[in-house]
């Protein structure tokens, strides 16, 4: 279980008893593996929270740390070290998976900063139905309405075993259009990265607000593109968004 500790609090190494900051997977003195540190994903890689990352350097660091913490390196170690290696490796993998992907990285950083993003991911077994947080972007209301009609028509035609080529062509066009809008959102997001990374507190707050809105829009568009793809019969779809 992850210990929630303030990263400034010095703690002592279990092996050599010398104190160190709780942001490291290894004791800086005796190199022994430590229980999972309490910092954020960026600190796992010794980084400050930021949105523009050198991905090649991130991968190199991921590989370097993996060689040291992976459970394969502790297969015959004591019970504690094996457990810590498992927890540390999970933390390292979770951190790398989140930071290498531009969207996940952005969402993660915004959440770290306290922003609320997207639908509440927590299922509530005793609670209410999960609310769908996707709102139709105001500028797209009309087009989305038309598109949904066409999708419905297409599905019905499919069920009847008919092919409507005009409809199909129109859906392909919609796919291109919304795909283009998606790419535009990504460009806007990249622009905001720069603003956040370089900005002071006020600039960061503004960038954050813009990014939250962009992510909402992006989620909506990406669901739309997915629906069109599915209806057009592209069952196989890349999971990656980058």
């Amino acid at each position, binding site marked *: 279980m992850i210990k929630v500790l303030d990263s400034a609090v010095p703690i002592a190494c279990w092996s050599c008893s010398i104190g160190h900051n709780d942001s490291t997977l290894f004791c800086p003195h005796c190199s022994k593996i430590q229980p999972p540190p309490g910092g954020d994903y960026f600190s796992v890689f010794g980084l400050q929270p930021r949105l523009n990352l050198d991905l090649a350097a991130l991968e190199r660091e991921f590989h370097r740390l993996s060689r040291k913490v992976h459970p*394969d390196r502790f297969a015959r170690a004591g019970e504690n070290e094996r457990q810590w290696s498992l927890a540390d490796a999970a*933390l390292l993998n979770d951190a790398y998976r989140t930071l290498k992907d531009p969207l996940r990285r952005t969402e993660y950083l915004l959440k770290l900063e306290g922003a609320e993003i997207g639908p509440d991911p927590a299922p509530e077994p005793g609670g209410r139905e999960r609310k769908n947080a996707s709102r139709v972007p105001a500028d797209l209301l009309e087009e989305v309405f038309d598109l949904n009609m066409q999708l419905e028509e297409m599905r019905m035609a499919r069920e009847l075993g008919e092919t409507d080529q005009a409809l199909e062509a129109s859906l392909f066009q919609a796919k291109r259009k919304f795909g283009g809008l998606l790419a535009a959102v990504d460009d806007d997001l990249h622009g905001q990265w720069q603003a956040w990374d370089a900005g002071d507190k006020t600039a960061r707050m503004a960038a954050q607000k813009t990014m939250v809105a962009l992510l909402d829009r992006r989620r909506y568009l990406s669901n739309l593109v997915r629906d069109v793809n599915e209806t057009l019969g592209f069952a196989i779809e890349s*999971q990656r968004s980058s």
Partner: protein
Amino acid sequence: MAEGRVVGIDLGTTNSLVAYMQGDAPVVIPGVDGSNLVPSVAALDPIPAGGGRPTVTVGNTARKALIETPERVIYSVKRLMGRSLEEIQDELKLFPFRLAEDVEVGEVPRITLGELKFTPPEISAYILRQLKRNAERFFGAPVTQAVITVPAYFNDAQRQATKDAGRMAGLEVLRLVNEPTAAALAYGLDRAKVGTIAVYDLGGGTFDISILKLRDGIFEVQSTNGDTHLGGDDIDNLLLTIALDEIHAEHGVDLRRHPGAVQALRKAAIDAKIALSTEPAAHFDIELPNGDRYQREIPRAVFELLIEPVLDRTVGPCKQALADAGLTPEQIDEVVLVGGSTRIPAVRQQVDELFHLSARGKKPHIELNPDEVVALGAAVQADILAGASKTTGEMLLLDVTPLSLGIEALGGGVARIIQRNSTIPASATEHFTTGVDGQTNVAIHVVQGERELAADCRSLARFDLKGIPPMSAGLPRIEVRFLIDADGILHVSAREQRSGQAAQIEVKPTYGLTDEQVESMILDSFDHAEEDFAKRLLIEARNEAETILAAVERAPQSPAWDQLTGEEQAAIAAARMSLQSVKMGENAAAVRDATLALDQATRRFAELMMEAAVTTAIRGKTMNAAGEELGETVTAPHAMAAAEFK
């Protein structure tokens, strides 16, 4: 190495192997009969004359029993590992698994062998024990730690069942390694490569595709996909079904009623399949009980048409794996072929088309024996885990979880918490709360799979968070941590954050064996008595000697005996004498050598016996003995099959 060797085991659907790292190269450890492959077949021996529990035989000996006493033998048990009663119904149509009748829903199915019943992990444990013994005989020292391979697409329950089997066999399973990844390790050993490779693994019963990135000794799996019920078995069944149907239609003989005959015909079908990989045609020529002969030629073109639907099922997983890795076929630098079924030319043709190989002037890698490469890779991983090796010290495998992990949400949907193809170990933390004032329990249902509805995914576990302090609805904040370990197996822990109290959690598996059940199924404790190791080796060697001597004793009664030359008979008699003279001595190695010598002297005799048994079984001489019905359980898997075959 103070702690003993770690061996690598390929626990296959059709064959199993054990290998280890000899210096800087992995090698397969042969069995007592000198063969590298141990058929994954287990047979319950006859009840001893004086009563008592009969023993279980594994491997080639058990395979012979398959034709003579099919009701005491099981093969392809891997298809049943970690699966529930409902999930195995399809298998029962195609395989002669005799399910115990008293199995209830939610219980691990048990298989009837003669007088006894066994769970699939127990059967696998017998196979593992045989491999363990082979390794111990080879090293002359105990072996207690192993790496075991599993299909990459195995789910949590199937992985857990495999680990349970290891424990029952007296092996500490240091790691479960995915089969295609193991193959990549075996290939990647001697080349410090940078590149992207795809491993296409079509084995006896499972299909896997994995895409890996190699860099500086790190093998990072990008994506994996597959089908845990697709392989050479399906091709055998196609051929078998057609032969059975034709024999019934053309000669009025329903061999399906006779398990021994079905198994004999199945062997003929497998031989035909193997021949078709190198020959333009294969032949069935079988004498039937009514004196007719079933003769039929199968040209390769017809065979290829027949198996097309089976091979087509590998296309979807390959495309999905490429899409998940974000790669095009052109970005795959190398393709590695694994599994006996990749010897089929049509399979190679399909791989060539899938990855545009010949179009780019490339060929798939087949340098390592496709039957052995997974075991060799397991040995490499075993060496990595043992540590301190110069050869593998810089190597590291980063594998992924093949299936997404999710929680059933209200309304039956699935909330994904760990996406498929996430590098393992991987974790996710979720927060739960209560819906009713004073509620002290919350039930959570964990599922594995890609479908939108929980009912369509594999149920992994239902568990209750118990002991939540009574509070108003929605106030408790329960943090649940899900962790998939390096074996691909899920662990769950939880605590209530509002009160800081660690909730007491009961993890109730939907399916699988409990710790206590596994404990009670551990094979005879004799195997664990390491201090008596030398004694144990000697007793085992003597037992093996007795088994072969008893068989040789009966040999002259067999018609096959008369087919031997006088010289061959004399050689057997000499080897027998020599074994009898050393048998009761204290030198286990001498007993083993003499056993091996006798085994080799009788090799041709064994082949003749096997041929005779096949013929006899089909002609019906042993049919009265084998009265059990297969009934209409064998059905053509594809409607087009029979028609295309004409």
